[in-house]
């Protein structure tokens, strides 16, 4: 039906006939129904004013196939009512999917939805991927487009992590570089923990960089960082994620972690019992140490100064200047 039109003007001059069919008769199992979310607002609207816009069906066969309008058909079916639809006639699954995308383009916002659509076309006819990406608002060769295509290289069940918010699309930049064994090894860290977008990207980046740097597989990296211990320990999710992140970072930056730990320990000793806080502000790139104190009166200023004088006599200051050791 749409053969010569991929996908320029196929529907522009179409005058599809309206059909009225019992909602329960419609086959709603088509794989082109890409984002069939239940929609309470649609249900309330149907209950209040009835069906205002037609669904799309292919009524060329013995049983009408739903092409768009799953939420409306589901609710009307529950009510035992008829559905008004436009009969688009017989066409391929890809054409149906494209019509579905166009009909739902206004509510397309999630990366997971775009990936689901791309995966459908990748499985049915990859030659149309570029055209589909344009309809989805993905500019070919842009970073989001590359990430969406990279995601398709992951096993299909990983789409649920994307849809559930466990992983952002940007992780595809890293995950696409891993083999099935590596992917399987890392799944545990987001199956049970709900990471913030920034932190999971950071943790995966560190894991990947250790994996490449040390020439070991991802499972070995996770084992060296005792990640599974943290996942399985009786910790709150927040503490578990913080511990995993800290351990992976320590593996990625061992010397920096050692210096930070020493600086923290030294600051704790030097400033013990005082109001002073001490930090090394620039990852040991300079010899600077920052000291800060909060005071609320001239008397507290005097006290802070006295504390600082006592601190200055401490022998442990040298530990702050690693560039001068060795």
């Amino acid at each position, binding site marked *: 039906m749409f053969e010569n039109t991929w996908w320029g003007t196929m529907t522009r001059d179409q005058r599809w006939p309206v059909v009225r069919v019992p909602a329960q008769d419609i086959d709603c199992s088509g794989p082109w129904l890409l984002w069939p979310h239940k929609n309470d607002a649609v249900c309330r609207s149907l209950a209040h004013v009835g069906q205002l816009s037609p669904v799309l069906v292919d009524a060329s066969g013995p049983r009408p196939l739903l092409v768009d309008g799953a939420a409306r058909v589901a609710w009307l079916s529950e009510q035992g009512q008829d559905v008004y639809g436009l009969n688009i006639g017989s066409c391929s699954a890809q054409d149906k999917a494209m019509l579905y995308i166009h009909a739902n383009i206004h509510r397309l916002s999630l990366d997971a939805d775009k990936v689901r659509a791309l995966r459908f076309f990748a499985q049915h006819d990859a030659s149309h991927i570029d055209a589909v990406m344009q309809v989805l608002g993905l500019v070919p060769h842009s970073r989001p487009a590359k990430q969406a295509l990279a995601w398709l290289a992951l096993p299909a069940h990983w789409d649920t992590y994307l849809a559930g918010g466990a992983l952002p699309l940007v992780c595809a930049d890293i995950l696409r570089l891993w083999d099935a064994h590596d992917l399987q090894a890392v799944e545990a860290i987001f199956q049970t923990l709900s990471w913030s977008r920034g932190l999971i990207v950071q943790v995966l980046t560190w894991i990947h960089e250790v994996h*490449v740097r040390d020439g070991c597989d991802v499972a070995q990296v996770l084992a060296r960082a005792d990640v599974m211990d943290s996942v399985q320990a009786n910790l709150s999710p927040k503490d578990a994620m913080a511990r995993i992140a800290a351990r992976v970072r320590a593996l990625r930056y061992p010397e*920096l972690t050692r210096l930070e730990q020493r600086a923290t320990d030294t600051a704790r000793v030097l400033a013990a019992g005082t109001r002073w806080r001490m930090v090394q502000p*620039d*990852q*040991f*790139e*300079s*010899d600077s140490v920052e000291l800060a104190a909060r005071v609320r009166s001239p008397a507290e200023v005097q006290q802070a100064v006295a504390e600082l004088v006592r601190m200055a006599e401490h022998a442990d200051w040298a530990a702050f200047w690693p560039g*001068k050791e060795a």
Partner: protein
Amino acid sequence: MLPEYLQGIARVAVDAAVSASPMAHRVRERLPQAQWDILADGEHLEPGYVQEAVLYLKQYKGRFVRPCPGTSHYQCCGYQIIHIGENCPLRCSYCILQAYFQDRVLKVWANQDDLWQELERTFTENSRQRFRMGTGEFTDSLVLEPLTGYSRDLVGFLRAYPQVCLELKSKVVDLSWMEAAHDPTRVLPAWSMNAPEISAREEQGQCATLEERLRAARTCAQAGFRVCLHFDPIILFPGWEAGYARTIEMIFDYLTPGDIAYVSLGSFRHMPDLKRHIAQNFPQSSYIYGEFITGLDGKQRLLRPLRVQQFRFLVQGLRQGGLDRQLYFCMESNEVWQAVLGRTPRDFGGLYRYLMDLAFEGSN
């Protein structure tokens, strides 16, 4: 006979304004098989060409002479760049040019008369000033020499300006410019040095081997030139001590300390974006996953104690070979200078002045 890395140039694009220039004639003569496209005034080279396929002879309208783009917080050597073109056909994984320019098309500024005028004006207006200049910042100084003869032209032009010392920084061997140099004290041929493993793995695309570079350096030294060596970027990798020790040993197999004007040491550092380019273009280059932190200038730098450790190792080896005064750091902090060399540029009147003195030390 052109080197192999230049034989792949299948197309030359040339701005109409410079299509009759001596540079254009020379390139046409040396690349007779290449397609020759003249770009009208205002017409741009269409994007998307791979760097090896196209050479662009351009009418450059910007400033040819500019200071080296040093950053704040670190000690810059203050040398002046003579801008003769952009990009390089060699494939060094760590090359900043991957991230620095929007495309990788080889460009040569073919309006040499404009360059000569600007240089003449600069030297005339500052006739009592000495200049330490070089062309190896935005391209390799010699990599296109068989095609363009640019360095030879420049060396010849600068004969009239004894207040200029020109450094030609390269990873290839082309000594054709030597004939144009009447005073060997005014030209400093320079080669990049690295550990043999880094040179073999990370300097792809027909760079000369370390031995070939050092052999060329010795040829220059025998002809009265002093040479410069640049350990930059120094890279942390498993076995780096043995690698850099071997290179230092090689240096003294070919050169004496007196042959060397100066040696720079620079740890691998980069704009944040370069890491992405390296990971993409050179996926085997795992050194980018070292312990880099954001330096005071916003660039990524190896954690300071690790830099200091490497610098101390190299400096010790170079000192044992008789080099000391000639050693300096490229873009390092006073803390690192003090920790490794026991002095900072302030102790000898500033790095700019110090290197100027070293550059002109061989003057009669």
